[in-house]
């Protein structure tokens, strides 16, 4: 029995299952931790304490929030387009889970090393837009709809510079596999060679995750709560969960591509990887609690007239230099 289980675990399918369970667990823990961290960091940036009374340092706060949201009435507004409304919060998890499969946490800690890893992530991340659009359309709420449309325009605009910023690294590493990209950074992190690409990627990443200063889809002072205005309880929690997981993914990819991933002295690889990722997560949170929001036309102008030409130029120069 035990042997059978071990055998199963050793097989490819078994690995996949264990990996998925691990990923799911990580997604939940990461989101809980990040909600806590966000409130705590925001608190201290505003010279207050943040969650404190629920558990030591308020650490149980996210669990209380999650339990509360679980225990809420399951409320479906009368006029919503039911299939879309129900499907959207579930669908938003597909890209999130798929992305985790190819991210190398450590030299050996990776669910599957697909040789087109980065393409998988970028391809699947487009599904997020679809689910946001479904949420906005299905809610039959004008604020939701505007939020969803903003989100689509924004994500499409920022996916291009994101891709263009990652391509020079792919050219340098000569591979699309994330593990190999990390391995190529043994001596020198790519951020040193490609600082511009890193900045462009990071800005586009913040925009992709709908965070301030690019949080137009859920701009509270304009759109109440954007595309998830009509969602409550656990369905709303799923959007929340996906948002925080996306932040981590964006940071993790940045760490993998530019900051040497799990490479680092003394400490084990996974520690380095998490350290680098969470440092970038901190920066994203830091940005949110500092800046106002940009306007919609400014946001698009910035992508199409600023980031995309710059990223393209950077790509050309890299390509040219590599040929020489």
């Amino acid at each position, binding site marked *: 029995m035990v042997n059978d289980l071990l055998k199963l675990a050793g097989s490819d399918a078994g690995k996949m299952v264990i990996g998925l369970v691990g990923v799911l667990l990580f997604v939940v823990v990461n989101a809980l931790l990040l909600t806590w961290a966000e409130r705590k960091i925001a608190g201290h940036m505003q010279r207050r304490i943040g969650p404190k009374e629920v558990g030591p340092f308020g650490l149980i706060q996210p669990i209380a929030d999650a339990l509360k949201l679980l225990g809420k009435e399951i409320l479906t507004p009368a006029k919503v387009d039911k299939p879309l409304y129900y499907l959207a919060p579930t669908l938003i998890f597909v890209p999130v889970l798929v992305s985790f499969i190819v991210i190398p946490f450590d030299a050996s800690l990776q669910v599957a090393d697909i040789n087109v890893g980065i393409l998988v992530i970028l391809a699947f991340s487009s599904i997020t837009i679809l689910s946001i659009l479904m949420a906005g359309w299905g809610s039959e709420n004008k604020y939701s709809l505007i939020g969803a449309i903003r989100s689509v325009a924004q994500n499409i605009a920022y996916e291009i510079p994101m891709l263009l910023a990652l391509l020079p690294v792919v050219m340098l590493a000569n591979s699309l596999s994330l593990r190999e990209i990390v391995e190529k950074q043994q001596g020198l992190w790519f951020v040193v060679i490609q600082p511009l690409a890193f900045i462009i990627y990071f800005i586009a990443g913040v925009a992709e995750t709908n965070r301030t200063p690019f949080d137009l889809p859920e701009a509270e002072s304009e759109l109440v709560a954007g595309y998830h205005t009509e969602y409550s309880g656990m369905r709303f929690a799923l959007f929340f969960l996906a948002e925080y997981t996306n932040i981590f993914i964006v940071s993790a990819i940045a760490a993998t591509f530019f900051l040497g991933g799990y490479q680092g002295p003394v400490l084990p690889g996974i520690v380095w990887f998490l350290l680098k990722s969470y440092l970038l997560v901190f920066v994203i949170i*830091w940005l949110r609690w500092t800046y106002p929001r940009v306007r919609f036309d400014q946001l698009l102008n910035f992508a199409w007239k600023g980031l995309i030409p710059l990223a393209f130029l950077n790509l050309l120069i890299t390509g040219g230099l590599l040929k020489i």
Partner: protein
Amino acid sequence: MIYGFIQGAASLIAGLGVTIRAFFQPVVTCQYPREVLTISPRFRGHTKLLADAENPEKNKCTACGICVKGCPSGSIKKVEGEKREGEKRKTATEYLLDYTTCSQCGICVEVCPFDALGFSHDYNGAGYKREDFHFDLVKQLKRSKVQ
């Protein structure tokens, strides 16, 4: 244009500097149920009856009703008094204040010819029903004595 770009980037970094500095500064929070702020002595809570300096058993209110007329929102519902033996004036036995309509303006305190009213420092009241805040100030005065 490049200058403007650099200037813009610099301004963004300056903003980040402000928040990160605040991040490492001590917090200014007063943790209310565990710590309390000192309430200013002139704080205006709801009104209370003041005890007579000579005879602490007695309040100074003579149930003349001037405050009832003066109150802008009719919060003082009823003031009753009785004349005790050997005294010139009445002493209040019942002073009903509906705190839920009060605006803490202090007109009753100002118009009182006997200076019988003052402001309490009860600043954190909360309750489960409206009636929790219909006070009988005479009883309250006695209770605060016992404490």
